[in-house]
């Protein structure tokens, strides 16, 4: 392998933001495939064209997914990335690591792969970026030895991820990291052996700030909330905020989406109409030392988040307004199983759950998963007068 020049990519070593090119070069110092990755990438930069081939399925024993096969379309020119498969390694919940754990991982990957990583992929996995077909099995075996298992790919439940949750956040209403730990273990088979028509993603956010973008990009999002009243420490409001010049009216009161807050400047007291609060988190975000989430904690389940392919992007919508989330999360798992069953039965190839619901109707879906219609599920009732009545509903209703 000759030492090719990469003038275009070198441009991306300039500037203060840490450079991925520098990282690839670091790996390339010892790894031929990292070097050829750089070379092929330089070619792409020159031509405005990627050089990975379409297709190519690879796998490891006992798993149906977790690796993404990748082949160069110019193997003669870039022989060391002729095969350059990705290994999706299930991340630790909350993305917590120790130095030791990371070094163990680096040791294995130095041995079998490019020495390049995505920390982390958008779904949440540790992406080990590039190895050969031959190296896959031993790599995965040794990852197992250090306690790392594969994540999901293909028509499977995908690797679950969450925000940091109760581990490091005062706002968490549910134990986000424990939930994904528990569900990940419970659904190992669904994650590792693609048997669905398409991907199914679950993400867990401790509260409505949604620090893991769960409603935007998971088929089922679990978002922490509370049922009682948020906790107000008026003394702290006065001392930590108002008396220090914080404009509580401008910053909080007028921005409350449900207009349920008022500030009694005379008494120095924040009043709330608890039943009107939509638990948007804003007031708590603005005055973290004085306001806290309520104590009757649970989750809102949001179904259907995804990006555009095929029927358009969707932000997940309310499926269950409130569910207690207590280990072992049996109520949740029962519901999830029903959802997956219905989707498996009716979903077409490459049809996400929200597209199936759109095609068959939300009511049909609710019936299938034994949920009652609730106004919380919709922004507004229907406006077009095309109303379906089942014969039973006509009988029971006048």
């Amino acid at each position, binding site marked *: 392998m000759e030492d090719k020049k990469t003038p*275009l990519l070198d*441009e*991306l070593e300039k*500037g*203060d*933001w*840490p450079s*991925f090119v520098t990282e*690839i070069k670091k*790996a390339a110092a010892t790894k031929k495939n990292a070097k050829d990755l750089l070379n092929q*990438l330089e070619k*792409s*930069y*020159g031509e405005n*064209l*990627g050089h*990975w081939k379409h297709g190519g399925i690879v796998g490891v024993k*006992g*798993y149906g997914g977790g690796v*993404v096969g990748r082949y160069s379309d110019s193997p003669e020119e870039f022989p060391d990335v002729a095969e350059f498969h990705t290994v999706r*390694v*299930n991340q*630790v919940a909350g993305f*917590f*690591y*120790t130095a*030791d*754990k*990371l070094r163990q991982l*680096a040791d294995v990957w130095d041995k079998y792969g490019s*020495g*390049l990583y*995505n*920390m982390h992929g*958008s779904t949440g996995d540790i992406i080990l970026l*590039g190895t050969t077909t031959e190296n896959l099995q031993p790599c*995965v075996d040794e990852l*197992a030895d250090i*306690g*790392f298992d594969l994540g999901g790919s293909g028509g499977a439940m995908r690797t679950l991820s969450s925000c940091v949750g*109760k581990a*490091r*956040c005062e706002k*968490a209403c549910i134990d986000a990291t424990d939930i994904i730990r528990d569900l990940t*273990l419970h659904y*190992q088979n669904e994650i590792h052996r693609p048997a669905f028509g398409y991907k199914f993603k679950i993400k867990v956010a401790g509260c409505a*700030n*949604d620090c893991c973008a769960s409603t935007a*990009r998971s088929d089922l999002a679990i978002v922490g909330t509370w049922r009682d009243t948020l906790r107000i420490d008026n003394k702290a409001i006065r001392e930590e905020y108002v008396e220090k010049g914080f404009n509580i009216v401008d910053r909080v009161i007028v*921005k*409350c989406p449900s207009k349920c807050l008022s500030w009694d400047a005379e008494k120095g007291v924040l009043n709330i109409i608890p039943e009107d609060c939509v638990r948007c*988190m804003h007031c708590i975000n603005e005055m973290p*030392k004085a306001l806290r989430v309520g104590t009757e904690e649970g989750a809102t389940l949001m179904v259907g988040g995804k990006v*555009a*392919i*095929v029927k*358009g*992007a969707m*932000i997940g919508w309310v499926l269950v307004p409130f569910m207690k989330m207590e280990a072992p999360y049996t109520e949740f798992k029962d519901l999830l199983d029903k959802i997956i069953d219905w989707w498996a039965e009716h979903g077409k190839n*490459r049809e996400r759950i929200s597209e199936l619901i759109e095609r068959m109707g939300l009511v049909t879906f609710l019936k299938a998963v034994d949920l009652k219609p609730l106004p919380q599920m919709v922004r507004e009732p229907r406006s077009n007068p095309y109303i379906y009545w089942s014969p039973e509903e006509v009988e029971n209703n006048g």
Partner: protein
Amino acid sequence: MAKTDFGPPDFRELIPPVIKENYGKWKYHEVPQQGVLRHVSESGAVLHSVRMASPRLVSGDFIREISDIAEKYCDGYLRFTTRNNVEFLVSDANNVDPLLDELDDKGYLVGGIGNVISNIVHTQGWIHCKSAVTDASGITKSIMDDVKDYFTGKIALPARCRIAVACCINMCGACHCSDIAVVGIHRTPPRIDDELASKICEIPNTVASCPTGAIKPNPRTKSVTVNQEKCMMCANCTVVCPAMKIMNPAKDGVSIWVGGKVSNARTAPMFSKLAIPFLPNNAPRWPEVTDAVKHLIEVWAVNAKKGERMGEWIGRIGWERFFTLTDLPFTNQHIDDFTTAKTTFRSTTQFKF
């Protein structure tokens, strides 16, 4: 047979003692300085988290280096954020400043907290994806070099601004709900290799893959045809049928979308909307793209009220004003024509001239 289905390492064994002890008991946090979070527990215990920028695509050297740093200042404990920054979890408050110094010495950037531009969520690009129209890592690096003072907090912003970059409209990430999203696009329809298609194309799947119904079977060639007027160049068919090729280096490019968000704070989550339909795919530094992003940030920063995210600001002033303030042309491409297009039509006389 190898061990399978054991799942990832248990996070409970990888969190520092202060977290173990105060798990679920955190009371509040403050930000003593940009890049540093100070979480205080009901017990009074304190945890400092120092957030450092990462290129996401990292080498073993990087992994080992941050491990070493974590060992030096954090008993080895660290984490990554959902936007791919590194967080050093410092239990001993005395270690915060030395850690910051070392990061500074090594040229690492610290920041990303609160009303800033944090790390860009991006995708594989030419580095690993066969569908990439552009290189997400390259665009990300180019943008972040330009806006790093917003990451470190050197320049203040009205609110947080989340940027995402995707190399194709599959948008692996949250481009569709980002304050600013950069998305690689095609502008020419796929070309069909009829010969190949007749052999390998699963025609019903290919037909079904088209969001706009542009694909019809062609019994004559045993292949398919694409209705050019209906094709929105989404490339989805090319994922399903390898005989369809859509890459067109001369015509492919980059689009910019604005005003999305995912949090439910104040306003409901919002989709990003098209701001700039096309910019050239100008590697290695995409000056047109970085300029456009900077411009959008600046116009927003100057005009938004404190606390208003991009989409909230536009929501207040209206899109017609957005286009005048940013001086961006409004084109045919901006008008929706997909399935729920009619819900985007302005069915009120309320608008600004």
